[in-house]
């Protein structure tokens, strides 16, 4: 979803939805890499069944990364993609299905956004190259040093669009990758792999949703499947909620703002391209041993637990005394719908609803107010009740005036604050914060005069104190009055003009939404129509209403119309939504998506024409072309009241589908065989390894050369249904899979098989129900119960997936190692203190448990006795560590039986007590122990509840 702020808002408001991933890293011994064994239980203490990859979120960072040097060629990019998938597979460890979806041709509704991104990307690419060349020359002229320019082709990220050669290669590479892993990686052994490449129409995440939706609509679906969806788009959260599956988790890269990037020119960190001076490279580490490691940490991943978000939403949305029965699942759907007002890929957001200004909270508030009047929910199964929506819109419309005025006020006061802050910083910078005066004043040496001896020091000190009080007062006054009446001392030595040169020039805003007449000005400026033109306004509103219906349907039922799109660059006001009830009836049925090359013609600027056949390319640049108007060389960008330029609206013309098709009809015959293949619609492919129960079934299909479409027997594949169809150029066992990448070896011992796959089909007009399936078990609550009593018991937040997670402990030897390397005394062996001191000594150095642990426990209940143990306790570290691991795995294998896990811990608790006793009795330090009494076993209630 085109709302970058959405995830930030969500994770701040609902912090417990985020869980950091535990990632086991592969080890390296003597230069040999030992891969992680992914057949072992998931270290995140949860087992996932299905992993879905929205591949475009992987392809982009792997082909043109922002935080490291770009790969040199296409082969390196492919390897980077493989490694990225391996990483995700290792973290998530799916046990049943891995679904990889690459964006195919998107619905027309998305084309405007794609066009604007690609037109911009093309221009930026050229500008960056120019800037680089210019800076390079400048730096070299000044005598700086730059590494020689690497010979690498400029990668045009626009090629990540269905229908290009790059995407075709990628599909080939992924087939090879899957065959290789299925044959060689034990973790993949029983996984069903589905690959939906760019030749299958539909956006990646929506192909995934379609798959989930269709699976859960058939009777063999396991309602407790644990889904994990990978991708950074905020709309994945909406999509996940829209499935109404109880176990749905999203995995994404952790967003770290202001990550340092290497300079594009010299490759060093710490400055931008514009500031590059070509300075010699600094040595990294004492012997330059870190030369090739970036000082940035590797991108980490986080899980977003939708079941926790559902818990939060339950609290937020539950309403009592409704005129109709409350249904949480329905209210979630309404919540998802309202989030679309704030922004989505298909519609511009309403001017009054800004996520940063708490628009969603406002909407929820209005929703709860209005729902009493509406007499029911706004949506059902992805169909919108417009009458009720109008009530919501009118309520927003009433507040619109105030929202705009408040926005202006906030903006102004923010600017004022920033200005004041800058001023203060400057004042502080120009002189020390405190300077003694009078006789104590510092004096420059070597100026002739000698410092006088101090007379009457007491009196002088008194004067200084008084002065100080004055200064404090004036500082207070300054802060109160916004810096205008700063005391005489505060302003000293400050140059007036400095503050003006620093203030950012404001982009002119002709709409001035905060002043009367905003509506007229908005329509005049954005649409170039008079406010009296109600006909036109209605047209915009009608399109927007259609859009809302289309988007919701897209999320809940799939693409209703491949043709529909929003034909304006701006949204109407909420207050304009009047009489919308009859504005929408039904979409045109039986619409077809564009063919891949047609879509390329629709979204590429002429500068990216090299991805198209010569005659097609010609249509983009020839002045005689009958579609030349789609391809402007340059276009206007409207900041639209936003602060940041990249949020601006690119004013690009819309594509006339009829004219596009007519123009292409003439050049279609010129396509080569290869291009025709790229232009055709493809199919999903299903891959399996030899030990999969379905393997023999598919192998048999190939042996008998069955031509008809065959259903998957659900009992062979975890209840997954679908239709199988033989592949033209299949991956078959005992048939070498050739590597499309020179650096990688062919799969000579292939034991995987591939077959075309189609989602189960439903009759036209089938409505997928947005409900929880019968038999679905809702996972245990994670949030602190609202009625949780403070009395005595302490609430311990759950940090991972496992409610009974083992706390991390450091054994004694670990403590010792830590102390040693921190230089905190030598530990017990190296520096044994006299017995009398021992206790104090130990208390002084205490322990250094992980901060997470100590903050959780308040005071770690049993660390202390532990620490005080005698020498004999040295064995504990090992014993405990083993015990821990053992336990964790057992718990995992007992998934779903949390009771079992608990018991084990109890058991361990007892063992722990035994250990303590044994340690106390067996060690040579008996003497120490006697003075301090026993070792109380930690109270179980504190640890486990």
């Amino acid at each position, binding site marked *: 979803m085109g709302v970058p702020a959405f995830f930030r808002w969500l994770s701040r408001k609902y912090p417990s939805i985020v869980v950091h991933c535990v990632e086991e890293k592969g080890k390296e011994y003597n230069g040999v890499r030992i891969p992680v064994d992914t057949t072992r239980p998931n270290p995140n203490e949860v087992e996932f069944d299905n992993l879905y990859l929205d591949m475009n979120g992987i392809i982009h960072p792997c082909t043109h990364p922002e935080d490291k040097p770009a790969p040199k060629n296409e082969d390196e990019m492919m390897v980077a993609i493989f490694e990225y998938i391996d990483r995700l597979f290792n973290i998530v460890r799916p046990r049943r299905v891995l679904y990889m979806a690459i964006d195919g041709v998107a619905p027309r509704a998305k084309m405007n956004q794609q066009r604007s991104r690609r037109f911009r990307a093309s221009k930026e690419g050229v500008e960056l190259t120019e800037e680089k060349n210019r800076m390079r020359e400048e730096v070299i002229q000044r005598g700086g040093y730059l590494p020689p320019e690497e010979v690498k082709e400029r990668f045009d990220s626009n090629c990540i669009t269905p229908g290009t050669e790059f995407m075709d290669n990628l599909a080939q590479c992924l087939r090879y990758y899957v065959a290789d892993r299925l044959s060689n990686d034990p973790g993949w052994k029983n996984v069903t792999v589905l690959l939906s490449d760019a030749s299958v129409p539909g956006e990646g995440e929506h192909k995934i949703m379609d798959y989930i939706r269709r699976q859960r609509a058939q009777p063999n679906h396991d309602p407790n499947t644990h889904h994990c969806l990978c991708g950074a788009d905020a709309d994945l959260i909406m999509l996940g909620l829209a499935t109404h599956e109880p176990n749905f988790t999203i995995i994404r890269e952790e967003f770290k703002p202001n990550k340092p990037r290497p300079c594009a020119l010299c490759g060093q960190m710490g400055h931008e391209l514009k500031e590059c001076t070509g300075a010699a490279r600094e040595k990294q580490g004492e012997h330059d041993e870190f030369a090739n490691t970036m000082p940035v940490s590797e991108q980490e991943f986080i899980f977003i637990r939708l079941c926790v978000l559902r818990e939060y939403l339950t609290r937020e949305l539950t309403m009592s005394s409704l005129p109709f029965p409350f249904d949480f699942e329905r209210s979630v759907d309404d919540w998802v719908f309202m989030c679309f007002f704030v922004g989505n890929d298909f519609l511009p957001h309403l001017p009054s609803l800004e996520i940063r200004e708490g628009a969603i909270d406002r909407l929820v508030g209005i929703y709860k107010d209005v729902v009493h009047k509406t007499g029911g929910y706004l949506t059902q199964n992805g169909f919108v009740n417009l009458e009720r929506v109008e009530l919501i819109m009118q309520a927003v419309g009433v507040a619109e005036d105030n929202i705009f005025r408040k926005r202006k006020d906030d903006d102004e006061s923010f600017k004022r604050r920033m200005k004041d802050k800058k001023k203060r910083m400057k004042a502080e910078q120009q002189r020390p914060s405190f300077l003694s005066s009078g006789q104590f004043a510092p004096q420059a040496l070597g100026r002739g005069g000698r410092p006088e001896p101090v007379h009457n020091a007491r009196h002088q000190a008194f004067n200084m104190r008084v002065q100080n009080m004055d200064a404090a007062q004036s500082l207070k006054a300054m802060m109160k009055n916004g810096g205008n009446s700063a005391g005489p001392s505060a302003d000293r030595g400050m140059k007036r003009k400095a503050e003006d040169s620093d203030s950012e*020039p404001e*982009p002119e805003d002709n709409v001035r939404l905060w002043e009367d007449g905003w509506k007229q000005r908005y329509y005049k400026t954005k649409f170039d129509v008079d406010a009296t033109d109600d006909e036109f306004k209605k047209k915009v509103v009608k399109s927007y209403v259609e859009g809302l219906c289309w988007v919701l349907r897209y999320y809940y039922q799939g693409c209703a119309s491949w043709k529909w799109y929003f034909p304006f660059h701006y949204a109407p006001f909420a207050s304009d939504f009047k009489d919308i009830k009859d504005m929408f009836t039904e979409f045109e049925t039986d619409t077809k998506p564009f063919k891949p090359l047609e879509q390329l013609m629709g979204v590429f600027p002429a500068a990216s024409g090299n991805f198209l056949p010569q005659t097609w390319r010609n249509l983009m640049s020839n002045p005689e072309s009958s579609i030349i*108007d789609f391809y402007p060389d*340059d276009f206007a960008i409207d900041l639209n009241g936003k602060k940041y330029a*990249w949020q601006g609206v690119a004013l690009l013309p*819309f594509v006339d589908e009829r004219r596009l098709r007519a123009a292409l009809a003439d050049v279609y015959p010129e396509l080569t065989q290869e291009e025709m293949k790229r232009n055709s619609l493809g199919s999903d492919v299903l891959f399996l390894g030899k030990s999969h129960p379905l393997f023999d079934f598919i192998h048999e299909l190939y042996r008998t050369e069955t031509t008809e479409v065959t259903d998957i027997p659900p009992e062979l594949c975890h209840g997954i249904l679908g239709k199988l169809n033989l592949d033209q150029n299949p991956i078959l066992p005992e048939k070498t899979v050739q590597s499309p990448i020179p650096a990688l070896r062919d799969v000579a011992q292939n034991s995987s098989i591939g077959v075309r796959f189609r989602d189960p089909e439903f009759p036209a007009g089938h409505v997928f129900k947005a409900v929880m399936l019968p038999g679905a078990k809702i996972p245990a609550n994670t949030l602190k119960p609202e009625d949780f009593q403070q009395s005595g018991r302490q609430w311990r937040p759950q940090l991972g997936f496992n409610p009974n997670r083992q706390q991390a402990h450091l054994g004694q030897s670990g403590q010792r190692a830590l102390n040693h390397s921190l230089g905190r005394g030598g530990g017990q062996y190296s520096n044994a203190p006299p017995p009398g001191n021992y206790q104090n000594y130990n208390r002084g150095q205490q322990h250094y448990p992980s901060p997470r642990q100590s903050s959780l426990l308040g005071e770690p209940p049993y660390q202390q006795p532990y620490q005080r143990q005698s020498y004999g306790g040295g064995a504990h570290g090992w014993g405990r560590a083993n015990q821990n691991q053992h336990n964790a795995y057992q718990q995992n294998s007992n998934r779903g039986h949390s009771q079992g896990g608990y018991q084990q811990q109890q058991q361990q608790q007892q063992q722990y007590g035994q250990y303590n006793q044994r340690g106390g009795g067996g060690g040579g330090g008996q003497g120490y122990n006697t003075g301090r009494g026993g070792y109380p076993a930690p109270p179980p209630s504190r640890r486990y509840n």
Partner: protein
Amino acid sequence: MAAADVQDFLQQNRAEAAEVEASRGYWESEKHWAARREFILRNKGDFRPDSQDQLLSLSMVWANNVFMGCRYSEELLQRVREMAEGIVVEDAPVFKTRDEIMKQQQGRRRSAAGAPTFSRRGADVQPQGRRRSAAGAPTFICCQNMDCF
């Protein structure tokens, strides 16, 4: 052909009027469409029936340039300007294209290079002397570091 003439013409040639009307874009306001319709009608005779799409395309080139701020090659713009000669568009909006903004920014940066205190953030995009029309004209600013996917 003035606006009144256009009306007369359309009333006399119903069939042609309907044909032209079919090529109106949904997003086009009355004002924009009136201008483009005039453009089409003026030049219709110069295009063979089978190359009417080219005329439509040229009319869009002209309209996009005037009403949306799009730029095309000089050759093409010259051509549509000639074809549009005599069409009166009142109070046309003024735009700044992306390239213009980038150039202006770069010019500033270069002239300011070497100056000790110089703010790199934000750009003064006040189009000095470029503004042709009165209030109601939007101001546009460039985009830097787009999100790229």
